[in-house]
């Protein structure tokens, strides 16, 4: 049996975590000089968070054989 599709609320909740991390890491990177080693780390973290988001979206899509459950 395939897992129950996430509710819209759950999907939004799950996506908000890596989205916050990606956004925050980019904000921090933009504050730094281009040769600051921390900048590269923040950018790497942002990309990792975006990769997590992409993976989540892919998982949500896979469960969308049936429409997303709408909460009552």
């Amino acid at each position: 049996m395939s897992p129950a599709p996430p509710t819209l609320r759950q999907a939004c909740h799950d996506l908000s975590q890596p989205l916050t991390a990606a956004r925050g890491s980019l904000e921090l990177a933009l504050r730094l000089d281009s040769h600051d080693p921390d900048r590269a780390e923040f950018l790497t973290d942002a990309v990792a968070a975006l990769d997590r988001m992409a993976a989540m979206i892919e998982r949500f899509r896979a469960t969308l054989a049936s429409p997303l459950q709408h909460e009552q």
Partner: protein
Amino acid sequence: MRILVAEDDASLAKFLRKGLETENYAVDVVGDGEEAQALGERYDFDLLVLDVNLPSRNGFDVLAHLRKKKPDLPVLLLTAQGRVEDRVRGLDLGADDYIVKPFSFSELCARIRALLRRGQRAADSTLKVDSLELNRIERSVQRAGKAIELTPKEFALLEYLMLNQSRRVTRAMIIEHVWNLSFDTSTNVVDVYINYLRSKVDEGFEPKLIRTIRGVGYQMGPPPDSAAAAGE
């Protein structure tokens, strides 16, 4: 300023730690509600950033418990739950503010600064020792009217020393408040940073304000003889 962050999402917790450290705060991060409650109760933090969805004990329960033990501790809730009833619940339980994910780091920092300002009496916003002045709101330092540029960690160290002026503070106390609880206390990082600070706030000025107390640690304030002379 010392902040406890309770957030179970590892990447989010990492960016919060690093980001807040760049803003001069000493940051401790925990990933579950039990730990947040234990540390919040045991140590003196200036602010708690508390995620609502935590394993082992959710943020609302932690908040309700800590509010009874630490009524003055400012608490900022991090929530992915944008529902009005959740926000009302958090505020009714004693949260001072909340921010909904996804949020901008700049907005988070602004809310933290606002909460810390609210908690500080106006008189506490400027610390003064002899001719040395530190403004906690503007995050600026000057000695005898001359502006001094400090790195975030130097600022945090000086702020801690000035908050404890005329008191002896050990290296362990400094590490606990200026770095974080997991920092290796066996390193000489405190002495290194004290030297950086001395070169910026004491070099070229009299009296010297950062004093080494042999076998103990450090003390901020003019030497006893100079204080007596100034009082004459």
